[in-house]
């Protein structure tokens, strides 16, 4: 059991190194990468914005209710901004990414394997790691921070909508307190997290797809594993990064 897990981690690490080795070559032909940024990013945009709006609105409601008990509902902007920037933005976006883009990547690559497309590439003396895996990996890594930033902005808008429009928090206090309390380090924490999550989710998705057994059941299981492993990994990395940032 332990041996198998270790072997798996080792296999993922070796796979990561092989993919990273192909990334410069993939970047040299950016068209495929652009295509994958579109697939992973632009196509997830609607769901990211929708969820960001609702998460922000919930933050507005809950935050207002909580802060009101201490008579400091003016700090709603701070609470919403920090909550979104540091935690909810990166984590919720990463979980949605795993469910939306990650599964699509895994099943696509798995089906390419099952229908011999990857083998055909190898037979054409074309390395599928370079032409299939690396662009998809890079697309995910690039798309994630952008998605997180959009999620944050829409979330802030949602919180503002509830707090200022519905609960009548003073808009000046909302924004000025937020601007006074949020530091560049807080924003950076969110960006670092989103980069790490993008890295992890994309890696898991392409790894599972690339190594999926070439059957319908195999691809299905691999897709499920992508969601499960990505989600657990995101929360684990989130804890470690949060601890590291607070420890500074």
């Amino acid at each position: 059991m332990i041996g198998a897990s270790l072997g798996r981690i080792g296999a993922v690490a070796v796979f990561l190194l092989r993919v990273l080795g192909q990334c410069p070559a993939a970047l040299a032909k950016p068209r495929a990468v652009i295509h994958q940024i579109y697939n992973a990013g632009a196509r997830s945009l609607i769901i990211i914005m929708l969820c960001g709006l609702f998460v922000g609105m919930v933050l507005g409601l809950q935050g207002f209710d909580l802060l009101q008990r201490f008579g400091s509902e003016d700090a709603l902007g701070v609470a919403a901004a920090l909550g979104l920037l540091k935690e909810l933005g990166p984590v919720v976006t990463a979980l949605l990414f795993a469910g939306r883009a990650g599964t699509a990547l895994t099943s696509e690559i798995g089906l390419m394997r099952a229908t011999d497309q990857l083998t055909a590439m190898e037979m054409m003396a074309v390395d599928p790691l370079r032409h299939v895996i690396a662009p998809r990996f890079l697309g995910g890594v690039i798309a994630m921070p952008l998605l997180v930033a959009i999620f944050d902005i829409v979330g802030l808008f949602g919180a503002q909508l509830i707090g200022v429009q519905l609960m009548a928090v003073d808009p000046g206090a909302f924004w000025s307190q937020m601007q006074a309390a949020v530091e560049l380090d807080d924003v950076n924490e969110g960006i670092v997290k989103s980069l790490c999550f993008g890295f992890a989710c994309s890696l898991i998705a392409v790894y599972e797809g690339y190594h999926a057994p070439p059957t319908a059941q195999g691809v299905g299981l691999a897709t499920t594993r992508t969601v499960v492993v990505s989600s657990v990994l995101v929360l684990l990395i989130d804890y470690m990064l949060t601890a590291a940032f607070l420890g500074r």
Partner: protein
Amino acid sequence: MSAPPVCIRDLYYAVGTRPIFAGVDIDVAQGQITAVMGPSGTGKTTLLRLLTGQVLADRGRIELFGESVAEVDKAGLYALRRRTGMLFQNGALLTDLTVFENVAFPVRAHARLPESVLRRLVLSKLEAVGLRGAAELMPSQLSGGMARRVALARAIVMDPDLLIYDEPFVGLDPISMGVIVRLIRELNETLGVTSIVVSHDVEELASIAHYSYLLSEGRIVAAGTPDELARSEEPVVRQFMSGAADGPVPFHFPAGDLAADILRRAEPRRRRS
């Protein structure tokens, strides 16, 4: 002349404990169509994977153009594969590219050609398989036979010295099958491409192959021209050529006693994962 395109000596290969090949020798002569026949499950596709270095043999030597596929490095293997075109059973077209881009794919990956030259090259190959008009379609819009013809155009776009066909006739209607047979023969005659056809369609192979090997139970049980095989008195060959259900190649997968098996049903069965 240079070394023969394919030379296999004393090949051993096993999956787990099940031997797939136990001492196989195959030679493919320059400019000929060589057929490798055999019942389903005798590892014909595995043979192709061994031949192209996707899997490595347990023992024995496999040479492509005089170079051992087990000993060359990755760059060397890719160089060998560039001289080899392969037609997959299901075509294996890249589903996110158009027909045109599929055929252009190996060219784009290996050479930097001006777009006009590339276009002429790709369209001429598509014309050769009769599908120039389908250039802008997506693979999902093609029938099985058309997909295989596109895959064939892709396999020949780099002008390979060796063409490998993996079960090219499976699942095709008689017309498509006739088209593929004609294409294999034409490509061989007009371009002089050495071809290996792996299949179990005896009649089609007999009409195009110069030389045939019959695989069974991990060994070459017969070899010769189609005529020689047709006249053979060997029971295995007779069974395969005539399509009898039972014979030296048993109808049943090896199993224990039927009655004992049925009685054991009462106990919970364990499945191998």
